[in-house]
């Protein structure tokens, strides 16, 4: 009964969004205020109804209503409470529902919290958002219906995929989807600017805030996904350049490029049309990625069974691309370039353009690599594979370029090639970076790298990251000095800059973390009970395979005692776990995390009859913790920047010597 109400509510949302889209479009053409208000009301109510429908689904999960097919497939009687909540988005229909719910809520929020200066473009914004909502709601009632009933009702569900029963996987989808849907608002504002024919006063501020919010959510979501892969999947890595990982990375790249483009637009009024394109493409690729992975076009760890959702997505994406392209082709000329003369040449602006180039090249490479198997099969008929080695051939170079651009770009000023106290800063940074690099090399034991190229890459990479960090910090010091170290004043006016500083430092820390992947120290060891293996200075003594039951699974743990130089350090117990509702054994990795490296072990095999013999894979993962710390730093930087007032400089079209 409740499920039927839920479905009916979603059906109402569909009707309301279609009405909202139609009314808002007409309101835009006729400049009709009341029609716009009606559209806005419809969209708001759709958001409220979607929330109620979601609550109904959650409630049904908790009362274990297995007459709803989705609940039957994704939960079971023994599912812990936390995972019963997250079962909502554990499969296609539910995750699509979550996405729709988020976009309805954010659309409502965007339509009620706009800048007064933007009032006349809001109909365009509403029309864009409502049309996306309408399509997503339509999918919810047709191909992706979470309320579909299943009779006769079973006593117990099929249970949740064991891989998903992990706290990181619990928060990764909502965080990531928040990022994707938040990107819809800058895209809607871009369409509005094109439709209206100009970029209005408050446009920049609103777009910047939403883009920042999306960026924070995307950064957090992506790194949470990486953390899940690290602790759950058992191959000792956190990023495999898997198609679904790539399809979350591409919107992140576009969002980053958008933020930098908005900076230039704010200071100089340039790159307006690039901003519009980036905002749209970021949003477009968030759907595109979902399309290629969920429709089964490319297989990936996230592939659900092929469903008719694929062709639907294709039509939507094609229509969206066509409409916005036509809009851009006909209306972009009305977005006038800035009044300032373009002082091309070496300046902060050109450094930012170089950054855009590097970011967009990375996006291209990731996109080409992800799509290449389909393309090559379509053209040559031969299947090819594109996995990590392809992407790892290019990404480090772009990373290198970005590290340099961060350092140089932040030190430069607008409209002048002169870096204030440039040589002093750079040499000072190099001198400060040397001891820091030495410390990193010593404590991180970088010299243990077996291969010379990998060693060289780590040394150079670490030095450049350290140098870049000091360039950033000295630049910050310079600006503080300009204000005579009045910190309160500095933070009142420059929160966006400081947030950027923190986020850039976070990225450098992350790159330091990535450099650890060059180390390549691992071992496979088969041990009898009581035997030890020496690995990277650790002594690992295998005791026995222990069977334990907790949560809702049976765990076979390969218990090892870890010691170093005779000092016992504790237990490491990588395990394989068996859940009652599924046949496979899953990995529970054993990790000893330290600041400088992780000792990572998985149980590949064990003697099932006696438990006295086991095969372990041992990995040394240096500087992995840096990546998780970097996530916090980057998100902190983003949050700081969100609080900037963005009053903007009204005289931004004037030529200024200082930035």
């Amino acid at each position: 009964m409740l499920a039927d109400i839920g479905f009916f509510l979603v059906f109402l949302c569909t009707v309301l969004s279609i009405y909202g889209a139609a009314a808002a479009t007409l309101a835009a053409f006729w400049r009709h205020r009341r029609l716009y208000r009606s559209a806005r009301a419809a969209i708001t109510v759709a958001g409220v109804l979607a929330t109620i429908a979601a609550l109904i689904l959650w409630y049904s999960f908790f009362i274990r209503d297995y007459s709803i097919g989705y609940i039957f497939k994704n939960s079971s009687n023994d599912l812990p409470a936390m995972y019963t909540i997250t079962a909502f988005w554990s499969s296609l229909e539910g995750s699509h529902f979550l996405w729709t719910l988020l976009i309805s809520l954010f659309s409502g929020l965007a339509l009620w919290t706009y800048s007064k200066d933007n009032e006349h473009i809001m109909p365009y914004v509403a029309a864009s958002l409502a049309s996306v909502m309408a399509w997503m709601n339509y999918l919810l009632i047709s191909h992706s219906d979470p309320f579909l009933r299943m009779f006769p009702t079973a006593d117990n569900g099929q249970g949740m995929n064991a891989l998903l029963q992990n706290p990181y996987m619990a928060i990764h989808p909502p965080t990531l989807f928040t990022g994707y849907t938040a990107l819809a608002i800058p895209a809607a504002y871009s369409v509005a600017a094109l439709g209206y024919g100009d970029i209005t006063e408050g446009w920049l501020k609103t777009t910047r805030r939403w883009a920042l919010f999306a960026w924070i959510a995307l950064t957090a979501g992506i790194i949470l996904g990486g953390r899940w892969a690290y602790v759950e999947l058992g191959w000792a890595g956190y990023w495999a350049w898997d198609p679904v990982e790539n399809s979350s990375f591409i919107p992140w790249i576009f969002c980053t490029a958008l933020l930098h483009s908005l900076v230039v637009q704010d200071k100089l009024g340039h790159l307006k049309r690039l901003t519009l394109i980036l905002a749209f493409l970021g949003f477009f690729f968030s759907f595109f990625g979902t399309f290629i992975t969920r429709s089964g076009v490319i297989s990936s760890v996230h592939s659900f069974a092929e469903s008719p959702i694929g062709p639907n997505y294709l039509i939507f994406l094609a229509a969206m691309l066509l409409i916005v392209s036509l809009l851009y082709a006909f209306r972009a000329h009305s977005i006038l370039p800035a009044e300032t003369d373009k002082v091309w040449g070496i300046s902060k602006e050109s450094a930012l353009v170089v950054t855009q180039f590097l970011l967009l090249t990375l996006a291209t490479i990731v996109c080409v690599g992800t799509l290449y198997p389909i393309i090559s099969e379509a053209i040559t008929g031969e299947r090819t594979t594109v996995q990590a080695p392809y992407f790892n051939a290019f990404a480090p170079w772009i990373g290198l370029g970005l590290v340099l651009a961060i350092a140089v770009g932040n030190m430069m000023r607008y409209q002048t090639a002169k870096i204030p106290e440039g040589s002093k800063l750079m040499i000072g940074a190099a001198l400060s970076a040397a001891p820091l690099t030495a410390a990193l090399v010593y404590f991180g034991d970088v010299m243990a790298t077996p291969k010379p190229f990998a060693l060289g890459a780590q040394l150079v990479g670490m030095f450049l990251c350290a140098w870049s960090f000091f360039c950033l910090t000295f630049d910050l010091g310079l600006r503080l000095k300009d204000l005579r170290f009045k910190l309160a004043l500095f933070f009142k006016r420059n929160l966006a800059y400081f947030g950027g500083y923190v986020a850039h430092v976070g990225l450098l820390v992350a790159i330091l973390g990535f450099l650890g992947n060059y180390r390549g120290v691992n071992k496979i060891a088969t041990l009898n009970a009581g035997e030890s293996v020496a690995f990277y200075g650790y002594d690992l003594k295998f005791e026995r395979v222990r069977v334990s039951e907790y949560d809702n699974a049976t765990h076979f743990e390969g218990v090892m005692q870890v010691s170093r130089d005779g000092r016992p350090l504790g237990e490491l117990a990588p395990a394989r776990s068996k859940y009652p509702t599924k046949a496979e054994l899953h990995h529970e990795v054993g990790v000893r995390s330290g600041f400088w490296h992780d000792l990572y072990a998985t149980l590949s095999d064990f003697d099932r009859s006696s438990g006295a013999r086991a095969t372990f894979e041992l990995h040394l993962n240096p500087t992995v913790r840096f990546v998780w710390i970097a996530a916090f730093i980057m998100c902190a930087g983003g949050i700081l920047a969100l609080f900037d007032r963005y009053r903007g400089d009204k005289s931004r079209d004037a030529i200024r010597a200082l930035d």
Partner: protein
Amino acid sequence: MKTPTLFRTWMALVFLVWAPLASAQDQAPIDEDSRKHQWPTEGKVGEDFLDVAKELRCPTCTGLSVLESDAKFSVQIKDIVKEQVEQGKSKDEILAYFTERYGPWILRAPPKSGFNALAWILPIAVLLLGPPLVWFFVWRRRRVVSSQGVRSSDAILAEMNERLTAMKPRTRA
């Protein structure tokens, strides 16, 4: 008491678990004999083995190399690689051996020949040719600004210079 329960649990699980064993990485069963395989990881043989095994994909997993995976198929491939490395075959020879049997799909990145060379050339081309192209089409459009901050262009300036020269009073030589 705990011990009989544990023993019973073990016995039950031995029978339950033995049959439907499957790796989480793929849906094929773990090779029960994989513990008998000792992969060479030390010395030149070990290095070569790791090198080659890193470049072959696990046919039944998504995204993993045969080195990273312990699925049955991967183990079989690793056996063959180990054999050939011990025989002294070079990396290219072993990769060619597998490509012959499975097609270029077995490699983790597209081979650098034929149509697939495009996959490698495109990123390098964008990285190298991109900046000059951007510079040519975008940066070169310089706008000339007169001292009053009025925008003009080379053509207008040339025309105005011409007219000014024409308007100048002719001086005697």
